[in-house]
């Protein structure tokens, strides 16, 4: 019976933290591994990002050229080119589109298997998603950026704090994006399928996150409202503005802090929604 006793012994607080970190790490690694098996789709996707990089980059450069000396949105040409190419790379890292795993599992009923696991569902989806983002950083972020650097003059950040801040900003963008995707998918708990909300999200996210054009092209009042009142700019525009040093350091820092606030609140909201949904599931399944 000694063996059994050893297994049920009380786990110290330090051990609990250590275990959680190990579990989180293992789940993230599984996300990374999973995406490294889709090798051909990765190549095809990177090619597509590159084509769109060319398209958007030429358009924005034409905008600067047509502005006759003034800087549209406060950007110089090399900053805009960097905005486009890094944006194409980040698009897959933050994964704005095409994630229906949760709603599919809700619809098929597989979600009940997830609820039986000793890991909270939000964490159970967040950890592999960070692994996926890590994979995308290597194989979807770098290739278009390299092509962009080959054909256009890109902006090289000068401040020492920019790169760490950019990395932090990508992390918050990914977490915020996962939280929103989780919320959109979770509507499937209540609606029959999440297709409607999903379509709305896909349409609005591209424009409101700054993919179609830099949000600074909008009138100031509108841009500021979007930044503070919605999480969208934090998904793409903020990391890009941080990297190309659009603003002085204090404001760079403030933008990332704003992102952090949004990402945390959305994650908390996702946990609350999940709790509501579980209560509903229990009530319905008896």
């Amino acid at each position, binding site marked *: 019976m000694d063996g059994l006793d050893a297994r049920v012994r009380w786990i110290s607080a330090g051990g609990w933290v250590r275990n959680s970190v190990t579990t989180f790490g293992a789940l993230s690694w599984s996300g990374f591994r999973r995406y490294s098996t889709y090798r051909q789709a990765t190549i095809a996707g990177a090619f597509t990002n590159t084509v*769109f990089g060319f398209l958007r980059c030429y358009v924005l450069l034409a905008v600067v*050229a047509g502005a*006759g000396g003034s800087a549209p*949105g406060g950007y110089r040409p090399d900053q805009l080119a960097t905005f486009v190419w890094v944006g194409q790379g980040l698009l897959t890292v933050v994964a704005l589109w095409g994630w229906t795993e949760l709603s599919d599992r809700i619809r098929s009923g597989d979600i009940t298997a997830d609820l039986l696991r000793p890991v909270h569902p939000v964490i159970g989806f967040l950890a592999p998603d960070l692994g996926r983002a890590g994979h995308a950083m290597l194989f979807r972020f770098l290739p278009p950026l390299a092509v962009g650097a080959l054909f256009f003059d890109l902006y090289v950040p000068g401040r020492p704090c920019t790169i760490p801040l950019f990395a932090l900003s990508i992390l918050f963008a990914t977490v915020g994006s996962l939280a929103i995707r989780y919320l959109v998918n979770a509507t499937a708990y209540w609606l029959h399928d999440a297709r*409607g909300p999903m379509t709305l999200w896909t349409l609005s996210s591209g*424009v409101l996150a700054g993919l179609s*054009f830099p949000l600074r092209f909008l009138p100031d009042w509108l841009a500021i409202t979007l930044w503070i009142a919605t999480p969208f700019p934090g998904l793409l525009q903020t990391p890009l503005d941080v990297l190309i040093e659009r603003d002085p350091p204090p404001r760079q820092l403030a933008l990332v802090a704003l992102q952090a606030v949004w990402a945390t609140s959305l994650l908390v909201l996702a946990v609350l929604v999940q709790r509501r949904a579980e209560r509903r599931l229990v009530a319905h399944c008896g």
Partner: protein
Amino acid sequence: MNAKTKELLGAYLALLRGQVHSLTSYRASFAVELFSNLGGTTLDVLTVLVVFRATRSVAGFSLIEGLLMVSLSSLGFAMADFAVGNIDRLKNYVRTGTMDAVLVRPLAALPQLLLMDLPLRKALRLVVSGAVLVVALRSNDIVWTPSRVVLLVLAPVAGAVFFSSIFVLSASLTFWWIDSGELGSSFTYGGRDFTAYPVPVYAGWFRAVFAYAMGFGFVAYQPALALLGRADPLGLPSWAGFLSPLVAVVAAFFAAVVWRAGIRHYRSTGS
């Protein structure tokens, strides 16, 4: 029309009817998607407006001239997307075996796939694109001649045929490369984005490939120049705008050949 053709037409109509009936079982979802699509097209046009707002002119073209180009491109694209756009789900058809089910029916494969899954939710896009074209035509000072009137009718139709061909070509790619993922959208949606702006915006080999080798320059840019009576800064003669139907026919021919080859390849390899 002889009896046999009539019968065949009836068969295709039946497929379309099935698709319409299917929608009635998802009325709420359909309504949401219909209006989302409306919103999507509006956002596409707004994007162009915002881009022009940030500057005085783009590659020497004013906002209203740009609006004419984006509306020609978006009307052609909307028609093609409506009729043929769902073919980009070909890889799902192959994976789920729908392709096999289609091949054992007594009808041609491509029209079956299109009619079984006609994206009726995209119908309102046509209305928005048409409305923007009307606004663009009224804001520009166009000197109307008979040939320009003909061109105005031909250009969107040619654009639709052209984009449809691109859709079919991109989809055919999956016959050879099932994991090609979003690659096809580089040319379908990428092509739409390309044609939304004047060609001189682009440069170098990228412009040469997209505008002339693939023919995207003839969808909206050249016809718009011909309608406006503006000389092409890149040096093509003014009648180049009238080439758009020809370019569309060539593209359609290519698409038909590649699609047939694709079906043949599918038949020799299976899924």
